[in-house]
């Protein structure tokens, strides 16, 4: 398994851990503190989202490349470029879906809280992180084929 695969797996693991923590937190807020479902979801996903953001962004720093070793050839470059294109396309579709759904659900001329825009960006970033990791893993293959980092 090479460096890119390790990074992708670690990022997916961090996102999965953050999702599980958010779920546990949300359930706790709902049952112990009596919050509504949407309030509990937003409160519960607070610090796990921060953990997820820093975890995903800092992953390449934890898995540094070794000195004097070439671990990024033309194949890796091609996979990285394809994964990036698919990632950006997926986040673009997320933005379309989020904006159209919100517009249709809320109705024309209705004011919405401005912090929802921040949530849309966060959703777009999360979509990008998940798609990038999954696409990289799919292109390399789920199982290790003997690539070394």
């Amino acid at each position, binding site marked *: 398994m090479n460096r890119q695969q390790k990074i992708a797996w670690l990022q997916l693991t961090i996102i999965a851990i953050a999702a599980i923590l958010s779920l546990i937190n949300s359930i706790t807020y709902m049952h112990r503190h009596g919050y509504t479902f949407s309030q509990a979801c937003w409160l519960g996903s607070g610090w796990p989202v921060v953990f997820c953001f820093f975890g995903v962004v800092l992953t390449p720093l934890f898995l540094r490349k070794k000195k004097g070793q070439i671990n990024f050839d033309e194949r890796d470059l091609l996979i990285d*470029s394809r994964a*990036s*294109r698919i990632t*950006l*396309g997926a*986040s*673009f*579709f997320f*933005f*379309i879906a*989020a*904006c*159209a759904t*919100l*517009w*249709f659900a*809320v*109705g*024309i*001329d*209705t*004011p*919405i*809280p*401005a*912090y929802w*825009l*921040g949530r*849309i*960006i966060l959703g*777009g970033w999360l979509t990008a992180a998940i798609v990038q990791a999954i696409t990289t893993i799919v292109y390399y293959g789920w199982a290790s084929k003997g690539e070394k980092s």
Partner: protein
Amino acid sequence: MNETKVGSWLYFFIGLACFLIPGGVAVFIVYDKGISFLPVLMFTGIVIWFGLFWLFPFTFGKLGRGKKKISFDERDQLIHKRAVMAAYIVLWLYFVAVCVIAWCIVGPHGSISVNVLPLTLLGGLVIFTTAQGLASVIQYGRCDKGEKS
């Protein structure tokens, strides 16, 4: 001037009009007759349709594989992929910038009209097409170098 270069110029001039006219019709219907499923569906359809517009050269390349004339070679493909990548990056930055600026203008506890979202999408499409067209034109060179379609 080859086919892709002609296509890039078409994207740049006629493409913008193709985006704005149907989008404008959808907005006019909404303001004239109120919100209904049709304009929202129309608008989302336009956004998705034009969001996938960059796949057309690849589709035409596959359809025209049996023909003797090659009008979309590896270089064109590389330029096209790079242009799409550049356009996606510009689009991503645009969405983040719009959301952050709107959020900063009204404040963290302020509210904005939901109409900002479809307008943001429409602006995003225009920016995507412009960036893609510009990136293609820049990569080919602004002057004709004798490429033939």
